[in-house]
């Protein structure tokens, strides 16, 4: 077989592999069953909970991640390498390990105090946000750093020589220039947060009508042999993911400046 054909063949195989997987979902449900499961209050609750939690978690990740990304991209400081390495922690740590670590932490005197005097996280809604935030903060920072790296620091240098303070130079020059990349980072982080399972279920539990996000609902639906509901939730997750991916592609296609 020719070289080109082999390579393209492999690419097509991967596509068929995933496509068949998704197609099998469609064939295992009926339109009526699909609709009934979709409008069921518990399904709608999971969808809403996931969307809200992922959005808040992403917001926090941006608030802390964007300045961190900027610092890592532009400044030299002591311990920079270590900070950079620790961004990978959620990637090398299994999500369930991350969630378990939180449970352990909230059992320490300090964690206990935070829960008693501040917010309750364990088996509560804030726990979902915390688990999702922990999973995506490193990734969000890493992705935003990558898009800031692409913008030459020279733009800011010139802006400053023209009278902008460092804050002004950031929001008038660097921010608009890296906006597309930052937006893509946010969308991907959000999608990852929405799909998070391991850390969330460990920290916040799987309580229907309280902490049951979409991925957790899929798990419980399967456990109770409610295949129809599981399929609905999977398809919605896939749909959200595809929309997010498409949005990322789309942000890359806006050539505003030329």
């Amino acid at each position, binding site marked *: 077989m020719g070289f080109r054909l082999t390579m393209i063949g492999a690419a097509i195989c991967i596509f068929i592999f995933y496509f068949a997987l998704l197609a099998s979902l469609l064939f295992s449900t009926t339109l009526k069953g699909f609709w009934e499961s979709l409008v069921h209050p518990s399904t709608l609750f999971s969808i809403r909970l996931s969307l809200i939690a992922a959005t808040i978690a992403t917001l926090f990740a941006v608030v802390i991640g964007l300045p961190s990304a900027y610092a890592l991209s532009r400044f030299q400081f002591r311990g920079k390498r270590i900070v950079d390495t620790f961004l990978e922690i959620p990637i090398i740590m299994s999500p369930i390990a991350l969630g378990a670590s939180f449970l352990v932490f909230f059992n320490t005197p300090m964690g206990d105090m935070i829960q008693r005097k501040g917010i309750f996280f364990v088996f509560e809604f804030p726990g979902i946000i915390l688990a999702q935030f922990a999973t995506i903060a490193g990734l969000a920072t890493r992705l935003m750093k990558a898009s800031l790296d692409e913008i030459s620091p*020279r733009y800011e*240098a010139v802006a400053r*020589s*023209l*009278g*902008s303070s460092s804050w*002004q130079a950031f929001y008038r020059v660097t921010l608009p*220039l890296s906006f597309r990349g930052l937006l893509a980072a946010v969308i991907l982080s959000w999608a990852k947060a929405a799909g998070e399972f391991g850390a969330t279920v460990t920290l916040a539990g799987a309580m229907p009508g309280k902490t049951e996000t979409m991925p957790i609902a899929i798990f419980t639906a399967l456990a109770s042999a409610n295949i129809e509901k599981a399929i609905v939730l999977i398809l919605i997750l896939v749909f959200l993911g595809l929309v997010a991916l498409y949005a990322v592609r789309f942000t890359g296609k806006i050539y505003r400046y030329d």
Partner: protein
Amino acid sequence: MIKIEGLTIFLGSFRLKDFRIEIAEGEFHFLLGPTGSGKTLILESIIGLHKPKKGKIWIGEKEIQPLPPERREISYVPQDLALFPHLSVNENILYGIRTKNHSLKTYEEYVGSLIQVMKVGHLLKRYPANLSGGEKKRVALLRALAPKPKLLLLDEPLSGLDPSIKFEIQQLLKTLHTSFHPTVLCVSHDFEEAYLLGDKMTIFIDGNVEQVGKRDDVFLRPRTKNVAQFLGLKNLYRGKVLAKEDMDQRWILGINGLRISVPGSPCQGQMETGKEVDLFVRPEEVMILREGKPIKESLKENILQGKILDITDRGRHHIVFFQDNRDEVLFEISIPNYAYRNLDLSIGKNVKVALRDESFWVME
């Protein structure tokens, strides 16, 4: 007057100690040095992007070293220009005036005349991505000049341009300077650039200021061998002062066994017997003598007999590579085309050459 004193930078393996420079108001000053000599780091220190270990910078009476970049009133055109891609040409140009909250009205006339001189009036609504290389340069220069900076810093403004655009920008910089008299410090590694544009230049090699002076001073009278080498001068020889000819105020230099008699005037510093010096022989001042013609008295001091090793045609002139027979010292001789045609030279031919007194320059 811009004054920098005692600028000291340690960064990685780069060491700069006590760098100083003075630029008069309205002067076009070149900071010249080979690539990688740390010139950009000096620029960044002046702008305030790099915090030097030590050093003071004055603009007039005001010391600006403690100020952040945005309060120094120093504009900067980097080598890559860094035009803001998300802003139109017009917005790029007005950036500095707007951030400084200056009223646009008071600048209208000035910016208008800048736009006219720079010929960018028809580009104002475009974005940088749609400009040609030369247009980008012009917009970047305009953006830097618009807020009337106290000092304009240019980083290699002519490098990486097509020859035709290079010429255009060179002319433009000249016009700009004669019409608006900005104080400019321009960093470059290209002496030719500096020669065409600069009033004054500072030659900066290996972290040291080797020479400061008017361009002709530097070009015709390089102070050190480093400067001469940087200028790309040919026929540089290390030699020793062998003797003094008191009667004529001349010195005898020994170059690889070759004895050359040099008048006192082109000798710099204290000359004494036994001292090591660098001799530079200007290629355009060496004469190839025509066979059979009587030799003028003034040329008789240094006549060499030798062979032509090679000849290259440089368009406007020819370079003849000549080696003297006895001591095998090699000279490059530059001959205008009309003289070359009269001389009937060829590779391998034996000729006599006169090193005229005007051809010598001796450095400590």
